[in-house]
């Protein structure tokens, strides 16, 4: 039972990481029906930005004096950086293709993903980069199982970001404009919403969430790699599809399910095949319920 609880905590943590990335996929897909292949790269770039900033602050000695402030600054800067990066990618590679065929946009996204990944490799090298491991070494003992401080931070931050996003989308004017654009871009434009600006902002918000996930993953596993974006990116897309593309709650749920599958498969069945199960779930969901668990019935032609 304790083993199970321990795995459950791990599963929720991992699921949270996936959910944060999946939110970006789901929001972008909800608005312009594009699988943004480059999204996984924002996650990787966020992880790298975190390690660069934290290592620099460590070398300057700020980490010893104000560790929490440093962490906060690293998070904010990395998220802002990835938001700007995403807006740039959108402007260069996707915006000119608004009226082009879907295949063109998809390939452009694929090209951007390869470009960003190799850019990361060229500037940062092919080897793992290690996070300065000063943070939250200990663990909270609850009964027989451990809740590491890192997991605690990850869970709290994931929850905070998700609540924040929900508030943004459902309580603010900007969120209202986003929802309107997702529903019908032409009509939204007619009532005075600048759809280009909304699309750009959606990319930025999604990338910022992915960047946060990137730092969390980096802190959690201790290191980052230039090609760390691809597999989590696909799994997060699986999570978005699982929950129903376009649905924010769905993406969170989907992320948790994918995370849980991975952890429990590794714990009880086989560690080597844990990735296979994520893909099998993706295919099974698309086969039996193409609109996902929480997705509404989208018109056939839009899919």
């Amino acid at each position: 039972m304790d083993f199970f609880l321990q795995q459950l905590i791990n599963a929720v943590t991992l699921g949270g990481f996936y959910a944060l990335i999946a939110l970006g996929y789901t929001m972008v897909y909800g608005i312009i029906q594009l699988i943004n292949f480059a999204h996984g790269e924002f996650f990787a770039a966020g992880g790298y930005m975190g390690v660069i900033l934290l290592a620099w602050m460590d070398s300057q000695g700020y980490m010893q004096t104000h560790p929490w402030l440093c962490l906060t600054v690293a998070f904010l800067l990395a998220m802002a950086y990835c938001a700007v990066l995403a807006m740039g990618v959108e402007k260069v590679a996707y915006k000119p293709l608004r009226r082009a065929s879907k295949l063109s946009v998809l390939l452009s996204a694929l090209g951007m993903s390869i470009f960003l990944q190799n850019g990361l490799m060229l500037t940062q090298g092919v080897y793992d980069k290690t996070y300065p491991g000063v943070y939250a070494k200990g663990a909270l003992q609850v009964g027989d199982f451990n809740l590491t401080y890192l997991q605690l931070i990850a869970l709290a931050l994931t929850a905070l970001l998700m609540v924040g996003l929900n508030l943004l989308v459902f309580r603010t004017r900007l969120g209202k404009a986003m929802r309107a654009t997702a529903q019908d871009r032409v009509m939204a434009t007619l009532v005075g919403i600048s759809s280009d600006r909304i699309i750009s902002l959606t990319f930025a918000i999604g990338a910022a969430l992915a960047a946060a996930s990137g730092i969390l993953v980096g802190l959690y596993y201790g290191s980052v790699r230039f090609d760390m974006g691809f597999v989590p990116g696909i799994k997060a897309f699986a999570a978005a599809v699982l929950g129903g593309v376009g649905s924010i709650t769905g993406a969170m749920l989907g992320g948790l399910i994918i995370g849980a599958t991975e952890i429990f498969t590794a714990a009880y069945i086989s560690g080597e095949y844990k990735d296979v199960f994520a893909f099998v779930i993706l295919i099974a969901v698309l086969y039996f319920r193409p609109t996902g668990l929480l997705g509404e019935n989208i018109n056939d032609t839009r899919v």
Partner: protein
Amino acid sequence: MTPASKGLPAKLAFGALWVYLLVWPMTGIGAQGLDFVPAAKITGAALLAVLACLGLWKLNRAGGDQMGRLGRSVSGAAARVPVKLALWGGLAALLVFPLLSSRYGQDVAINVLVYVTLGLGLNVVVGLAGLLDLGYIAFYGVGAYTYALLSVHYELSFWLALPLCAALAALAGCLIGYPTLRMRGDYLAIVTLGFGEILRLVLNNWMKLTGGPNGILGVKPAAVWLPDPEEGWELTRMLVKSPLSQYYLILAIALFTVLAVRRLGDSRIGRAWEAIREDETAASIMGVDTFRLKLLAYAMGAVFGGLAGAFFAAKMRFVSPGSFTFIESAMVLAMVVLGGMGSVPGIVLGALALIALPEFFRDFENYRMLVFGAAMALMMLFRPAGLIPAKRLGKRSEEDH
């Protein structure tokens, strides 16, 4: 100055500033402090590249008339050459090529031909039937592993294994195709990607069968019976080991593929595929059996992937999961799309452009994939139909929505 180029310097300056701001954090923050030079270098390189592209574009526009006339006269002259003569001439050139080139040239040519075969196979699925497939390399893998296993465990000859490889790849095509037939567009793409990854993970982890990441060693090369001058021109069993003989083997496979794909494209089946690509609903109303034909497209496309895979295993005499990654699928797809979907010469040109051209820039090896990614995105902006678009290519029905 044209009105469009009025704000050009300002735009360029703004772009450069923006690139600098994006690049600087990744290159300039380190334990030794803040460094502003590398980012400036990268920005300068990017600016130069943009200026070069702009200059070429302007030249192209300014000299458009002359260039167009030149192009027309060249193509007019080419058109006057009888088709048969051109074909035989081309074939002769292909046959003579390896005798005149170095070993390195032969290696590059073999690579190009492997990718031509793969590209043409994928063209059946993407170009003709309009089914976006991001996991095509899986069939290449199936072909390669089939031959490797048959050769290592049963000592089966290459020629006996070849049809089996094709058949197994076709079976894999059906297996992957069947559950995806209900999906379209993006979802189809992501599911095929999932299948490709599943296959790679299985190859990587099924230690007993595939040897895991270490792969399978000791695959036998293909063998042919040839008259050997040293034995008095008696028929002798020769192993296809040298790049020269490998070139002829893959040339035969590639030519077979070219012929087969051409014939398929012109056949009733090919027309039906094109109908499905243009408008699936309309095609099915007009009596096209979309279900069977889409499955057939997957199977036929996979056959050529399987053939190329078998050759690959026989050539390398070694297979490992590292050769069948997603990036390979992306390369083949890029060839098909850059060359021109549904057009055979287009794909040959695409394979040449993506495999042979980078060989000339070996010094920039590290930047190869970076440029590849950028080129892919740029191509979509400027020439989405590819270098040589297919003759019959309509507007896709999905785009209207």
